[in-house]
């Protein structure tokens, strides 16, 4: 489904992602883990078109997508959420989710101006589907709320609902449980497991190891931009390099 080969990104002198290769199989949940600053978000930004790779290739279903803009990748079924919330606070929760299905709708300004037949009916149908998606991610009670009035945990889920509204082939989740309490993290874990059961290909960055170990089919470990290890949760749990990197990171942090 997704093949990343020798991917490298440098910012001036900093090499944020260095010669990373891995493959994500269709229908699996793939985790990318690593200490802070390891290059996980940069990797996501490269694959989702926010950054252009310095070197290397990214192929989605056999087609090279490196350097293609996010709005074009959306047409190819790539969707994502953000580590730092990216919700339109000037919209309601429902409207935010509805923007996820933007590509299904007629967005011509002239057609909108004259209320071109069909636009409103399609939008009403989408509104209903958006409400279902909000329900699905556990935000049903915020359907009528303004995004700015919602708590942080609900906004994290709102981003997932918006991404799902695009009906993505592959979904990138950047730290969906960051900043959530224990119960909320557990609920997000259940949600991601459900996405897996529904056959959605998920690539996940997350620091919560319990969550990662429980939902992932495979795990890639990054450290200082390089791939340190890759394997099943069981293999990663017992990998010496990984343990060393994490212990190292913890001592540095202390």
């Amino acid at each position, binding site marked *: 489904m997704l093949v990343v080969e020798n991917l490298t990104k440098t910012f001036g002198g900093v090499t944020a992602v260095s010669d990373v290769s891995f493959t994500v199989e269709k229908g699996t949940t793939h985790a990318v883990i690593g200490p802070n600053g390891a290059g996980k978000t940069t990797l996501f930004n490269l694959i989702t078109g926010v950054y252009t790779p310095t070197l290397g290739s990214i192929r989605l279903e056999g087609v090279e997508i490196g350097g293609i803009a996010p*709005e074009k990748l959306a047409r190819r079924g790539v969707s994502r959420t953000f580590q730092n919330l*990216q919700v339109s606070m000037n*919209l309601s929760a429902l*409207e935010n989710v*509805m923007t996820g299905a933007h590509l299904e709708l007629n*967005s011509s*300004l002239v057609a909108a101006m004259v209320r071109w037949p069909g636009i409103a009916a399609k939008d009403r149908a989408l509104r209903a589907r958006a409400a279902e998606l909000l329900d699905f991610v556990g935000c049903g009670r915020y359907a*009528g709320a303004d995004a700015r009035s919602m708590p942080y945990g609900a906004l994290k889920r709102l981003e997932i609902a918006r991404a799902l509204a695009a009906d993505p082939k592959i979904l990138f989740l950047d730290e969906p449980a960051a900043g959530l309490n224990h119960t909320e993290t557990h609920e997000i874990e259940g949600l991601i497991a459900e996405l897996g059961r529904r056959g959605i290909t998920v690539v996940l960055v997350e620091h919560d190891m319990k969550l990662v170990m429980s939902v992932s089919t495979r795990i890639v470990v990054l450290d200082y931009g390089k791939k340190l290890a890759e394997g099943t949760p069981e293999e990663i749990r017992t990998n010496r390099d990984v343990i060393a990197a994490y212990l190292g990171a913890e001592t540095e942090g202390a």
Partner: protein
Amino acid sequence: MTSLSFPNLLEPRSPMRFVPLAILVAVLATLPFVLPNVWYFDVAIRIAANITVVIALNLLIGHCGQISLGHAGFFGLGAYGSAILTSLYAWPPMLALAATAIVVGLLAWLVAVAILRLQGHYLAMATLGLGIIVSIVLTNESAFTGGPDGMSVPDFAVFGLRIAGEKAWYWVFAGLVVAAVVFATNIVESPAGRALRALHGSEIAARVVGIDTASFKTRVFALSAVVAAVMGSLSAHYMGFITPGVAGFSKSVELVTMVVVGGLASVWGSVFGAALLTLLPDVLAHLEGWETLAFGMILVATMIFLPRGIVPSLVAFFTKKEG
């Protein structure tokens, strides 16, 4: 209970949302019978022209989050385009208006394509420059424009029907205000309108769901420029005489101020903002020199006490109380 669940007058799907429009139409239809003399008609026409320009400009500023400091330049290009083509080249006014609007639309589109690829506030800078260039050209090309002294503009006529005098023009401008309100409201309530607000809220999130943010900004900018040009053309024919002042930088700032005071991303805000700020100088005129100060103080007071603009602040206030 959230504000959205309360069926307020401005909510998209509420049956009550036609009430403000009905009031506007009623007011516009009654005014000609109560206005005492042509001076008041002139004020009403200037207000209507500003409302129409400001509604379109608000789509750019309030919805796309892009500022244009050169909209008076587009208005001026429309005014002079029509004036020159009809008086020096004897084009039919309607053709001159359409041709000018198309050229201005293309110009705006080209500027936006070049500028909006870069994000941030480059558009404000570029339009500031463009507005100044337009001003200079209109002032210096006196062979065509009459220079600083201005030029006269023939009457407007369409299909042999001549439009002249304040009372006839009033109906044209009033009709355009209603059209602008209806069209802008339709855009705002459509998926395109939602996409515009989404890209203002988070550009990157909008792009990731497939919203071509640069294309939307370009199209809205061009649309708002065309509206300004058309209103410039019609205003030129109505006034019968124009000077480069119509394209001045201070006019551009006035238009932006009307958007902000009325309320960003609010169609009715634009109606009130434009009406209020067009009226103010006339109302304050008897303050003899103090009107600029009063004008400034009213602006500052609005910004401090109604930071979201007059109409959105009032709507929020009332829906909160009742919701």
